[in-house]
């Protein structure tokens, strides 16, 4: 039988290298616990690193989609309120027109009063048509200017859609074209009101009745525009919620990929610590004795 020859140097080298090994394992677990991450550099797990980078990119995208959607909700909320206010005003103008029509015989003074009020309503509607959100007229399309309608009631906006990206490749329009709300120039809500004012002043009952009919049509238009905007509002709201849920889910996945499983790491740490202490103790015992201790 051949026994392996063991020398003091071998013992020293082996002890030192196994102590180093124990210490480096301890350092690895310690790094995982102190940084809270198992992925500290790409080589820790190249595949998981790619996954983590993709998830991080998706989280950034989804967070941005939520921000876009929240911005869109602001726009559409303003659109909805403005359209509601405009409908009320048009309805009021129609009532005034009705009064003028039914009391066709009333005095000039009374009709003048009705006409003045309709004029005020027209100004109110013009102001509503120029409502802004964050400095931009909501019915002005992509206009760089501050108004969508001139004082004459002419459309001065720049046609174009204001969209918000609420998911990958999904866009939702958050404004309403001014011409959809009040009709085209020359045949717009403001023109109708102007005509009504003239009819009221002159006591032209046929004109007033025609104006009433036009206003009826405008109310329907406003209603349908508002319904469309409302549908978009609920869609964008759902998208925002979906985005928030996605961020939550993705963050959980990222944590599963990147973060340290603490209880397991603590158990690992304890194990490595025990192993290291055992290595230290055994080294201390092995290095001590020598034949010289037993010779006189």
């Amino acid at each position, binding site marked *: 039988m051949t026994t392996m020859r063991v020398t003091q140097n*071998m013992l020293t080298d082996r002890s030192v290298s196994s102590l180093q090994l124990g210490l480096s394992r301890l350092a690895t677990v310690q790094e995982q616990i102190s940084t809270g991450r198992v992925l500290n*550099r*790409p080589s820790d797990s190249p595949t998981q690193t790619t996954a983590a980078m993709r998830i991080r990119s998706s989280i950034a995208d989804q967070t*941005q989609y939520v921000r876009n959607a929240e911005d869109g909700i602001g726009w559409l909320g303003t659109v909805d309120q403005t359209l509601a206010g405009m409908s009320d005003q048009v309805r009021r103008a129609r009532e005034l027109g009705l009064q003028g029509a039914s009391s066709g015989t009333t005095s000039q003074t009374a009709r003048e009063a009705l006409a003045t009020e309709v004029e005020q309503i027209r100004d109110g509607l013009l102001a509503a048509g120029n409502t802004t959100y964050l400095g931009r007229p909501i019915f002005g399309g*992509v206009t760089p200017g501050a108004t969508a309608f001139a004082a004459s009631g002419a459309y001065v906006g720049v046609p174009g859609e204001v*969209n918000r*990206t609420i998911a990958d490749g999904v866009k939702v329009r958050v404004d309403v074209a001014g011409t959809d709300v009040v009709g085209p120039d020359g045949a717009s809500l403001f023109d109708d009101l102007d005509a009504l004012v003239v009819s009221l002043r002159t006591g032209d009952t046929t004109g007033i009745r025609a104006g009433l009919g036009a206003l009826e049509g405008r109310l329907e238009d406003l209603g349908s525009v508002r319904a469309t905007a409302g549908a978009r509002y609920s869609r964008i709201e759902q998208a925002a919620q979906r985005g928030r849920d996605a961020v939550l889910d993705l963050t959980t996945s990222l944590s599963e990929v990147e973060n340290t499983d603490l209880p397991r790491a603590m158990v690992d740490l304890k194990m490595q610590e025990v192993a290291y202490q055992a290595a230290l103790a055994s080294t201390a015992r092995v290095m001590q004795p020598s034949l*010289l201790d037993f010779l006189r």
Partner: protein
Amino acid sequence: MAGTLSSLNTALTALRFNRVAMDVAANNIANATTEGYARRRVEGTAIGAPAQPAMWSRYDGVGGGVATGATERMVDSFLDARARREHGAQSYLDVRAGVLRRVESGIGEPGDNGVAAAMAEFRSGWHDLANDPGGDAARSQLLARAETVAGAIRNQATNVATEQSDQRYRLQAMVSEVNTVASELAATNANVAVAKLNGTEAGTLLDQRDQLALRLSELTGSVATVRADGGLDVTVGGVALVTGKDAGAFQITGGVTASGGDDGLPVSLAVASGATTTMVPTGLRGEVGAVADLLTTTLPAYADGLSAFARTLADAVNAQHGAGYDIAGTAGQPLFSYDPADAAGTLTVALTDPDLVAASGVPGGGLDGSNADLLGVTGAADGDYQRLVNAFGTEVASVQRLSASQGLLTQQVDGAREQLSGVNLDEETVSMLQAQRAYEAASRVISVMDSVLDTLINRTGLLR
């Protein structure tokens, strides 16, 4: 019959042998921790009958004591060659792993501060601009984020370039170390040959010779063969570097300029001996091989990948940016600029005026954000970057694994060498005690013989 006094002579040989044995043990103990020392052992051979005592005579003795043989170095040339090979492979992998780990730590992925994070911020900057195409804040923020992306990419390119430059200096330092060690080995070879010729004890020279050859293998992965005169011939990649007492000059012939710069060529090495210069084939092991590979293949590959990614990113952004219109309604100018020779290292943001960011998809100066929206879409560049990081991470992980498993092999071979050549203090103590006792016993033999002769000479025939 043997002569009466022959026992005295036998005891004398024992005294001599055991004194040498004690010397050897003492020397072994003294050198127990000396690097590269192989333990010695003295061989004793019993002196018996001479093969041919003399003409017409015969030998009738029982043995003439012990002859002190040569001190033997406990080494195995096969194990030494094996150790040189494994050390060459180990130092190749260790240097490679060390450098790659350093480059990797500069990548900073996955994390909040790497290129990927900067790209995500850049994308969301475009979305913010799409939401508010007229806003100065959104425009300035976008330019700042574009600068962050360019800066992060430049930073990585600089890290790799710095590492390459460091490694070029290191290669020069290593080549000069190779030359120093090679000429020391040649000088040692000459001394060994002389010592062999005049019969001087050459153990220390041989220890030195083996150590120098091992260092050469660690540096270049060289192969050494033992000469008849006791020296070692060393070849690097098949090209003779040390032949007997002559050492060639190891030199860099391409890849690194004399001042440590880059000449754009792959690293090439050669050995000049006398008037002839022989090119060393590529694929060396050892530290020199590792640095040559890093400089020729690995680091340029990562730098090129980074540049390709920077080009893809800049071209895609510039093309889409050019399709849009800035706040004044004119077509967008390129957002990024770079030097095609070093895209990653020279990537900069070309625009400084926030108004020139082309967020609008329609001409004429409207507050449209559709082009910004298109710019905020994840492009091919993101995937390119992820693949680049993944490939580099895989390479680092594989080198680390290889280095660890080679470490086990190297440890095993070193263990086997130590097992044969290492000094065991207990063993030396035992042989010292043994020699001491034998010395005492031989002295006793002499005093016994003395008293025997005293009896014979002084007392024979005396009655009282």
